[in-house]
């Protein structure tokens, strides 16, 4: 049984459908006890970092998620849910994250400005569309996918300075963090629930983790 954290952020219909498609039972819940009882936990999210972080805190779910991470239970953040796992975000100010993964979330625009890419390429923000994963490290998350597989991204911010927690990146004018992880904690910047069979394979690998 996989529990999806319900903190009023984003549309969970597709995520539930994709878990159903791989035969995984899932429950959407804001209840800390139910989250702790689950075999693994997914933290979803779209929207603004500060708003999402304060919602988590106001429901005391920040502490619950830190407990879950410490209990060695598999935990995966998706999109904004992934960004919340890092130490901080620079989205409209500086905001503290859960600190479960090393790194700072920063605007892609800023990252591109510092990169050596050709300014003539004029990439659009957000990055919206299918881009290839470059696997940087072995991870149980990648059990059923291969280097170069395409996944679907929609994001204006990306994690930087992740140190050795970076698992995969993608080329968008600069090397943007696509997957990060340490021990039992994982994050996907893209949407596995919208990334076709590749996305389902990532979810399947996560749901097989104990």
């Amino acid at each position: 049984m996989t529990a999806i954290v319900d903190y009023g952020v984003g549309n969970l219909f597709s995520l539930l459908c994709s878990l159903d498609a791989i035969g995984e039972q899932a429950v959407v819940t804001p209840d800390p006890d139910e989250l702790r009882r689950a075999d693994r936990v997914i933290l979803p999210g779209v929207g603004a970092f500060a708003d999402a972080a304060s919602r988590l805190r106001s429901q005391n779910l920040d502490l619950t998620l830190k407990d879950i991470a410490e209990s060695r239970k598999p935990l995966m953040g998706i999109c904004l849910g992934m960004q919340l796992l890092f130490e901080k975000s620079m989205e409209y100010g500086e905001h503290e994250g859960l600190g479960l993964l090393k790194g700072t979330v920063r605007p892609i625009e800023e990252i591109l400005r510092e990169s050596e890419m050709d300014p003539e390429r004029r990439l659009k923000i957000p990055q919206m569309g299918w881009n290839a994963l470059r696997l940087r490290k072995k991870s149980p998350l990648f059990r059923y996918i291969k280097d170069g597989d395409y996944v679907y991204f929609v994001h204006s911010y990306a994690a930087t300075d992740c140190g050795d927690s970076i698992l995969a990146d993608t080329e968008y004018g600069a090397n943007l963090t696509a997957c990060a992880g340490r021990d039992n904690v994982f994050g996907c910047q893209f949407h596995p629930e919208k990334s076709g069979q590749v996305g389902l394979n990532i979810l399947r690998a996560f749901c097989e983790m104990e």
Partner: protein
Amino acid sequence: MITKRIIPCLDVKDGRVVKGIKFQGLGDVDSPVRLARLYSDSGADELVFYDITASAEGRALFTDILTETARQVFIPLTVGGGINTLDDFDRVLKCGADKVSVNSGAIRDPRLIGEAARKYGNQCVVLSVDVKRVNGAFRVFAKGGRENTGLDAMEWIRRGVGDGAGEVVVNSIDTDGVKQGFDLEMLQKVCEIAKVPVIASGGAGRTEDFITLFRTIPGVDAGLAASIFHFGEVKIRDLKLEMQQNGIPARIL
């Protein structure tokens, strides 16, 4: 590298897929859920479902089909047609849509784009525009291309993007259904003013039209078409291979 997207569009009426030539003379094609699966399996990057029913029964049938598609197809789904209020956004997002496209609804009430963007995020709001040349000027047409609003298309797009539309679908009425290629002149103008992804629509008749589109206008992010995919004139897998051979980044399954 980010790939150029290929997007089949499914016009749905009374639970079936239809496609009009120049918006008239609708003919029955296939089951939307079946087509959606087929497209997803052959490498479509995204799907657009366009609800062209007017009745309440038709609308309910449409959301049922959308829900069933979302259960089986795991690529982004955009829904358009009959989106006039935030409640309409809510209705289709709950049934599995990822993005919602507004057209006539935004012309009637231009605040809709801004309100929806604030509530659901820019990435969720797609501005769909039907454009036609009138005395050499690009004008916005409403009601499925039947009514000239008098609005200047470039001004309208600039405003919609400024209000928070995260993507623009530009459909050229002049080239739609003619199958002689996309409206490159008009798309070039749109790409000069829109900093968000631009989806080209109207005029694709063969594979080469997509190659010409992406080669001529690098600012175009995606190509959308309906009948050539429905009738198998262009197979998505072949199209993607052809794109790759021409140095256009494509996601090939």
